[in-house]
């Protein structure tokens, strides 16, 4: 007889989850009738499970973002196998900080404005891209033949050591750069061109309290942009290209900054 087996915590959990066999269910119900205190606890646990389901239901009902479409992931993978820097790892780390009582409060306080800031940097970068990329006479202030001077000058103005990445492998060469205002701060724009005359820009300004973020993608009026924060600098790479074309370039730039070591080593 199944009823002979004593009731265990596994039975009670399976009762909460409605996973008991009919005969066992009868036995557990009988037990709960005899033990009203336990019955009340079990009812609470059912209520909490239902509350959790309800609270989280919205997420599973959202339309799936296109970046998670398998076809897009497979296509992106063919182009570039490099992993993105994982923002969730950074968040998890901040969570550890939270328990140590050092970071948790700061994190929530700083998160919302920070995302807004990252977005406005991307918007400014796209706007600057739009204005100067179409410029035939004076696309840059300082041409690439003075690259060392250009980089030194922009680094000094932006306040952080910058590098103009080498994008020859991606088919682009540096044509120069310029200094731009961005919300009262100095921003740098490097411009590149490929053999067919297509241009892309890399925009950089200091900012972002986060040490590192993952790529954020934005598209405005045909201009695509990937932005990220790394070692106290906000970067935005923009081009008139689609996401899958731009992603490997953004990754190449990110990778070069990683490989050239910490330009910001003795920083802050």
């Amino acid at each position, binding site marked *: 007889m199944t009823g002979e087996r004593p009731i265990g915590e596994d039975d009670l959990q399976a009762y909460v*989850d409605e996973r008991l066999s009919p005969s066992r269910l009868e036995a557990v119900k009988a037990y709960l009738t005899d033990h009203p205190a336990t019955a009340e606890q079990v009812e609470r646990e059912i209520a*909490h499970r239902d509350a959790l389901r309800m609270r989280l239901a919205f*997420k599973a009902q959202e339309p799936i*973002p296109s970046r998670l479409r*398998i076809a897009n992931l*497979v296509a992106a993978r063919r182009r570039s196998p490099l992993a993105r820097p994982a923002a*969730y790892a950074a968040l998890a*780390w901040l*969570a550890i900080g939270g328990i140590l009582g050092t970071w948790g409060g700061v994190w*929530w306080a700083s998160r919302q404005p920070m995302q807004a800031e990252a977005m406005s940097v991307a918007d400014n970068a796209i706007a600057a891209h739009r204005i100067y990329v179409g410029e035939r006479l004076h696309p840059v202030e300082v041409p690439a033949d003075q690259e060392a001077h250009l980089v030194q000058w922009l680094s000094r103005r932006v306040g952080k050591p910058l590098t103009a990445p080498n994008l020859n492998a991606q088919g682009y060469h540096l044509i120069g750069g310029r200094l731009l205002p961005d919300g009262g701060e100095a921003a740098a724009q490097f411009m590149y061109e490929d053999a067919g005359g297509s241009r892309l820009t890399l925009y950089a300004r200091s900012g972002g309290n986060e040490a590192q973020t993952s790529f954020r993608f934005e598209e405005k009026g045909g201009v695509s942009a990937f932005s990220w924060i790394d070692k106290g600098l906000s970067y935005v790479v923009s081009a008139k290209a689609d996401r899958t074309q731009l992603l490997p370039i953004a990754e190449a730039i990110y990778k070069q900054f990683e490989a050239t070591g910490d330009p910001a080593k003795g920083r802050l």
Partner: protein
Amino acid sequence: MDEIASLLEPQIPGLRRYAWALLRDCEAADDLVQDTLERAISRWNQRRDGDLRAWLFAIQRNLFINGLRRRKARGTHVGEEALNDVPAPGMSPESHAGLHDVLKGLDALPEEQRSILLLVGVEDLSYEQAARVLDIPLGTVMSRLSRARARLREFMEARRSTALRRVK
């Protein structure tokens, strides 16, 4: 390709929900899901003829945990036991009372208890699937589930009595 998509895509809503519940940040959660899917695609051929759902949730949970470990190794001074005591990142600012409280209760639990409540209670994984995802024996699933629910209950009751006291 189409076969992979038709098998993986139905799992995405659940993976997103689990990721969001762990991270409580939309972008970061979708990054985690994206990494999970990318890994699943790249290891598609190594997938044993088993349970796809359990396999995917196991990948995602491991990526989440590895994220914690990697940061721990880089950041030093966090003991191994801290890993089990990691609360969810922060409390949702919009949470006041009622249903939202259950997320606060979830946040108060260690990761292993949060995960089991989510996998079994929300994602409807069977106990066997949960055992595979968490890589623990079935008996441990049951006792951990029991502990997690008891702890959530205690947390919620403590909150309720605090709230009542304030009203008086």
